[in-house]
């Protein structure tokens, strides 16, 4: 009898195995894949690694990492504290703002037009996603095209989308896949002659006053048109003001390093709390991943086609290499580098880096404004 009790108690230790289902196993594979991509392929490791590990953590049966019944789990608490109110992505934006040097863009502000054109994928995807999803989810999926993780989190969360997990995975994965996604689209839309257009670069000068007033002006203008974007734009620009003011270097460095790193650790793990099998393993997820890719493709196309249209009106010798339009997405600095490398591959003396990086930086501002406009259009 005692032997039976001992055996029952022993088996009870493993009773949780019975709660395991195939969907959880799928999520372990997804988590493992994210960790693999982060370590072996160095794809956005600072986010994909915490997300991958967190995915495994929350998909263990009756995981104590997330709330189960009345028992609160730490990741669920973090989600309530930092994600449901959009605090984490906004704090991360202070760090990102402090990292960005808008100087080259301020020398040639007209390059910002490409940043605007390259947001086309967001709004076009909204139309396509609207065919399959309710409007709030369609808008949340469309914002994957912002190529900007914090903006995607902010918009999807504000719109209370049910698909935060897949949207995050798509947003960060495609950002890392820019070198694979963009070149075929650029090649398909341009001729070799267009890709070989050289653009001479004369370095201009930007006054300190302009650098300091730029974040203030952007915040005011974006806030007036899209009040919902004030938090997003404002935090990004506040970070940039810390950098440019010249009297708060220690705060700027803290924002760029300690703050950004701390939030990144928490952000990845907290996003993973939404990647439970019941929310992720469903046909909708594949559709969201496909629509995210669609958004990136049409963002790229939007920028390239806009440059081609401008070229119709520009005289010979002043024409723009249409590839720089593709850098108008927010994936910084990958997109700018990809365009420069493509230019060098066509003509080893064609240096597009200063233009492509400037356009890429403008994409960061434009994607945030696009997110704000999307929220305004949704009536937030």
């Amino acid at each position, binding site marked *: 009898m005692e032997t039976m009790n001992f055996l029952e108690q022993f088996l009870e230790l493993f009773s949780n195995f019975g709660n395991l289902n195939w969907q959880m196993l799928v999520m372990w594979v997804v988590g493992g894949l994210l960790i693999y991509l982060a370590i072996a392929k160095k794809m956005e490791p600072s986010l994909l690694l915490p997300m991958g590990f967190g995915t495994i953590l929350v998909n263990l049966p009756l995981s104590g990492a997330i709330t189960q019944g009345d028992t609160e789990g730490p990741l669920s608490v973090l989600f309530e504290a930092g994600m449901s109110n959009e605090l984490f992505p906004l704090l991360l934006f202070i760090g990102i703002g402090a990292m960005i040097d808008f100087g080259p863009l301020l020398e040639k502000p007209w390059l910002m037009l490409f940043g*605007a054109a390259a*947001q086309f994928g967001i709004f076009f995807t*909204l*139309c396509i996603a609207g065919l*399959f999803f309710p409007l709030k989810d369609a808008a949340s999926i469309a914002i994957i095209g912002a190529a900007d993780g914090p903006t995607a989190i902010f918009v999807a969360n504000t719109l209370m989308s049910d698909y935060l997990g897949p949207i995050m995975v798509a947003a960060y994965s495609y950002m890392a896949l820019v070198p694979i996604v963009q070149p075929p689209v650029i090649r398909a839309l341009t001729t070799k002659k267009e890709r070989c257009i050289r653009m001479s670069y004369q370095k201009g000068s930007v006054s300190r006053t302009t650098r300091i007033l730029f974040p203030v002006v952007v915040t005011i203008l974006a806030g007036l048109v899209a009040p919902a974007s004030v938090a997003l734009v404002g935090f990004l620009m506040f970070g940039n003001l810390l950098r440019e003011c010249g009297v708060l270097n220690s705060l700027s460095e803290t924002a760029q390093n300690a703050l950004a790193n701390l939030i990144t650790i928490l952000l990845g793990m907290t996003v993973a709390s939404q990647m439970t099998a019941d929310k992720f393993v469903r046909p909708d997820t594949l559709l969201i991943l496909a629509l995210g890719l669609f958004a990136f493709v049409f963002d790229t196309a939007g920028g390239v086609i806009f440059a081609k249209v401008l070229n119709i009106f520009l005289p010979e010798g002043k024409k723009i290499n249409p590839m720089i339009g593709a850098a108008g997405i927010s994936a910084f600095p990958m997109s700018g580098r990809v365009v420069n490398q493509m230019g060098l591959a066509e003509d080893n003396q064609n240096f597009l880096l200063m233009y492509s990086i400037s356009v890429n930086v403008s994409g960061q501002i434009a994607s945030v404004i696009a997110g704000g*406009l999307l929220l305004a259009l949704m009536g937030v």
Partner: protein
Amino acid sequence: MNFASLSQTLPMMLIGMVGIFIVIVAIILVITLLGKLSNR
């Protein structure tokens, strides 16, 4: 597929793209002006 959603989303696409160009053009104008004023 909900084709009726296009009547809502197509105008949103148009307004969104026009809106983003308006904001960006306004920023470009102000920055150009600032540059000119501060270089005097």
